[in-house]
């Protein structure tokens, strides 16, 4: 039963990584940049949901919508102000800007909410714990919601990119920006939409993360952000199913590593696995090998 318990926890944590990783992988796939501020958008989303619940007394679902809306706006504004002017610049310049944006958001949170950790209210996800096998396996409401949310988001995103006009435009931009532009696709607008979706998902991830791990502080998004980025690379950056798979595997490996090998080495094991996978398959589990243009 401990095994099952760990597995459920691993899938739950992995689902959070997967949702965050989607944000990284979509932005990378379409804008060809690593948005290192993504983890901090998660933190901002969690803070906004926290405020909506605690200070403005909004019901959980409304808080979720408020956080998603705020993060969507934040993502689009960050892209428009900080990244768009650098569209033709060297990728290193964009990377540094993203890192700067990450610190800017963290310090902004520090300024607004202070350094003291806040305890994220459990009332956000108001679903009772389920007991299975006569109480031996307990699945919390947060865990359940996290796993379901992950599945729903995965299905919705896959349908969006394969069926809708905007989704197809995103795939075109991802493959060949110039050719997409020749088709009449507004590349800047498509990149904006990508940031909007990624950031809205970041808000969801922030709320799910803090529902399972309730300590909320300005650096809350950093470590999960880095791990989710790892998950995206692990699964094959640019690939939506890859982000899902990478996230889930990473979560399960992390929990099992902590449970069976060493609590202290949990994170080290995660990154060791990443290194091994990348040595064997540099494009990640589901990544396509990069074709050099001639």
């Amino acid at each position, binding site marked *: 039963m401990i095994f099952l318990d760990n597995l459920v926890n691993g899938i739950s944590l992995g689902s959070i990584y997967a949702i965050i990783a989607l944000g990284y992988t979509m932005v990378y796939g379409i804008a060809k940049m690593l948005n290192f501020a993504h983890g901090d958008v998660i933190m901002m989303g969690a803070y906004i949901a926290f405020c909506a619940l605690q200070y403005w007394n909004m019901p959980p679902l409304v808080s979720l919508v408020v956080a998603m809306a705020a993060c969507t706006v934040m993502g689009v504004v960050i892209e428009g102000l900080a990244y768009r002017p650098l569209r033709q610049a060297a990728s290193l310049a964009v990377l540094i800007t993203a890192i700067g944006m990450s610190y800017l958001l963290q310090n902004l949170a520090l300024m607004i909410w202070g350094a003291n950790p806040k305890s994220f209210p459990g009332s956000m996800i108001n679903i009772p714990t389920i007991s299975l096998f006569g109480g031996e396996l307990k699945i919390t409401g947060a865990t359940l919601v996290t796993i379901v949310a992950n599945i729903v988001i995965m299905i919705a995103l896959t349908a969006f990119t394969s069926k809708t006009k905007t989704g197809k435009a995103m795939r075109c931009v991802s493959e060949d920006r*110039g050719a997409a532009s020749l088709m009449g696709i507004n590349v800047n607008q498509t990149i904006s939409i990508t940031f909007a979706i990624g950031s809205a998902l970041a808000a969801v991830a922030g709320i799910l993360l803090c529902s399972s791990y309730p300590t909320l502080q300005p650096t809350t998004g950093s470590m999960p952000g880095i791990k989710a980025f790892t998950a995206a690379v692990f699964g094959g950056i640019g690939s939506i199913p890859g982000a899902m798979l990478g996230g889930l595997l990473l979560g399960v490996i992390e929990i099992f590593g902590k449970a069976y090998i060493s609590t202290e080495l949990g994170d080290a094991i995660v990154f060791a696995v990443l290194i091994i996978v990348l040595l064997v398959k540099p494009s990640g589990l589901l990544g396509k090998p990069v074709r050099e243009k001639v």
Partner: protein
Amino acid sequence: MSETKKTPLLEVKDIHVYYGAIHAIKGISFHVNQDEIVTLIGANGAGKSTTLNTITGLLRPKHGSIYFQGENVTTTLSHKMISRGIALCPEGRRIFQQMTVRENLEMGGFTRPAGEIAESMEEMFVRFPRLKEREKQIAGTLSGGEQQMLAMARALMSKPKVLMLDEPSMGLAPILVEQIFSIIQELHEAGVTILLVEQNAQMALSVANRAYVLETGMITMEGNAQELLHNDAVKKAYLGS
């Protein structure tokens, strides 16, 4: 000739294009009239693709202007050119490799209302039966000739007023080159105005009405395609005889 009297469909006036410090296009002017096939021929690096990319707005001229149907479109954004009626079938085809043939065609009609796309797609399948056979196949798995047909069909999906073809024969076997050129002629007969850029001067001149010879960013010769085909200087430089 009488053609000089009316407003050309597409007119390029004295454009200069730079890549950083490199002066790639040094003031070229040319025009394409309704229902013509005009070809720009020249060696590798002469600036042919640069010219087409500048017309579509992927590159910006530093000086000079581009007129389409009498309107100045020099600063029009590249994604707006296709709804104006200028479609480019780019060098190296640049089809969406990871999408199906059908999806590629849909993307070609991106700016058109959904209702009109189905009809145009049927037209493409009639003109390019091979694409119909490969409809659900991932475009990256097509052969070079099929990819070129897909790229042309994709450009035609927008019902362009002028179709610009950038090196459609590149990398194709001679038999496929002939096939592509006969398609170009068919399109012309069906009333499509074409601006053709080619290194294969022989083929290009034999289908075109008029031609311009581009050398290191400047137009060095222009005129009737048949006359240029028999011009000694052109023969020597581009036709290998």
